[in-house]
């Protein structure tokens, strides 16, 4: 098992370069994770979390740096090609599923991910049983709603479906972008439990962005704290298990304090 299944090296993303509004979103960011790892990513606003995900999926062009997944640099392939092996679940459930299509059509779309589209029937008959088998254990009654427009489902149900869609064809990398942040705490917990089970069962390499430090500590075997486009702090395995919320919050706060110091220095310079 390679220790650098996903290798992020020296990622740099500068918005509005060489202008007064220059923002360095990723500042030589580097880290690696091994195959099958489940890493949680925390950081304050503008730490570069979403920028990192956008760079991995290909919806954003980097200023410099490289991303290697499973031994191959992925930067040259366009987003739609990368998504054959990289899945993402977004915060807004309406961005994670196709709202105008039925549940069965959505799942079929996910099944079709790793093949080129032909003119045979999109929702294959033989998938019916598979979809039911997939939905029934969730206990949400979704197996009876395969022909319903997915827009009729609740936010939590949609996010659960989005998780299934992201993993129905096992990807090399699963990206969870605050996928429970818009849900109420109870539903959020349930969706996280389902997430944890799916990730464990499939052994898919996973990165999860979260604002909830409890979740960041509870789930996964690695915690990465991003700070102004760099890794500010990292904890793995046992070291991570020993962390408590206060530790992480302190790390966050000390980083923020440093940042404020920088700003006051700048102000003095003026």
């Amino acid at each position: 098992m390679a220790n650098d299944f996903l290798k992020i090296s020296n990622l740099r993303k500068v918005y509005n370069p060489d202008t007064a509004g220059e923002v360095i979103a990723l500042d030589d960011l580097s880290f690696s994770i091994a195959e099958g790892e489940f890493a949680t990513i925390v950081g304050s606003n503008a730490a570069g979390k979403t920028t990192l995900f956008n760079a991995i999926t290909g919806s954003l062009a980097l200023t410099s740096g490289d991303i290697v997944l499973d031994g191959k640099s992925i930067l040259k392939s366009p987003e739609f090609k990368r998504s054959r092996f990289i899945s993402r679940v977004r915060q807004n459930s309406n961005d994670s599923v196709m709202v105008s299509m039925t549940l069965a059509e959505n799942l079929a779309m996910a099944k079709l991910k790793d093949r080129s589209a032909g003119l045979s029937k999109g929702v294959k008959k033989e998938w019916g049983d598979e979809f039911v088998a997939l939905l029934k254990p969730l206990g949400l009654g979704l197996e009876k709603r395969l022909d319903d427009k997915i827009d009729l489902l609740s936010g939590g149900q949609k996010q659960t479906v989005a998780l299934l869609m992201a993993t129905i064809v096992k990807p090399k990398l699963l990206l969870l972008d605050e996928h429970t942040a818009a849900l109420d705490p109870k539903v959020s917990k349930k969706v996280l439990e389902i997430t944890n089970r799916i990730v464990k069962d499939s052994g898919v390499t996973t990165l999860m962005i979260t604002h909830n430090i409890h979740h960041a500590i509870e789930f996964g075997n690695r915690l990465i704290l991003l700070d102004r486009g760099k890794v500010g702090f990292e904890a793995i395995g046992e070291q991570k298990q020993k962390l408590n919320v206060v530790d992480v919050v302190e790390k966050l706060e000390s980083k923020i304090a440093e940042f404020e110091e920088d700003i006051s220095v700048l102000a003095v310079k003026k």
Partner: protein
Amino acid sequence: MAGILFTSFELGLLYALVVLGVFLTFRILNFPDLTVDGSFVTGAAATAIAIQAGVPGLVAILAGFLAGFLAGSLTAFLHIRLGIGKILAGILSLSMLYSINLRLMGGPNISLLWQENIIGWLKTPLNDINAIIFLFVIIVVAKVFIDWFLQTEFGLRLRATGDNESTAQSFAINTKTTKFFGIAISNGLVGLSGGLIAQFQGFADISMGVGVIILGFAALMLGEALTTSNKIPTITTVIILGAILFQVIINIALRLGLSGTDLKLVTALIVVIALVIGSNKKYLAYGK
């Protein structure tokens, strides 16, 4: 009254292909494609030229489809490859097609009177019950084709593209390809309609496309008002009915003393009313 119904039915069927085309772009792809006014004429011109060259009528209407398909490809190219906005790409392509259509036709119109046409034993202009039956068969084939197409693997991807392009990309969909074929096929149907109309009225004319897109919107919205279902086979059926209903309304407006030149105004007002009712539907429901 029987006369009104007969004419409305015939014209409604002729324009139904436009409505199916508009449905593909406007509803499925979420792409308000203004190319229609131009590709309609391109289809008519190509069909007329083919008939003049002695091509059998059935093949000639395929030329109409192909010409419309190419006209749609032009818009798709401007939008997808060159990154020009949806509306502007349509307007630019429309303007180019005006010149192209005049070149194709070699003048502002082509007469097809007394030429051989789609049903070999009839002479243009067609106003015969056989022609209506023929037309009906074409529309049913087009409807069944679209119903089938939108359920295929490619069709699912096309619908996903219109639903949410960025999410579609995260399901490995090359949205450039899906958009291209969606826009091109839509305009192919429009060109097919243009070609049929040229044969039925006995000429192709440079101004025959003016306002066709608005007609398409009006018929689409009238049809959609007939159902609450969102199943595609139901929608394609009701929008064909919408095309016929639209012609009935227009015919009645004419009988009430409006002049033919007022019809564009009436058509646009139907669209405005449909849009206003559509956007207020939920508020109207709350009021009850």
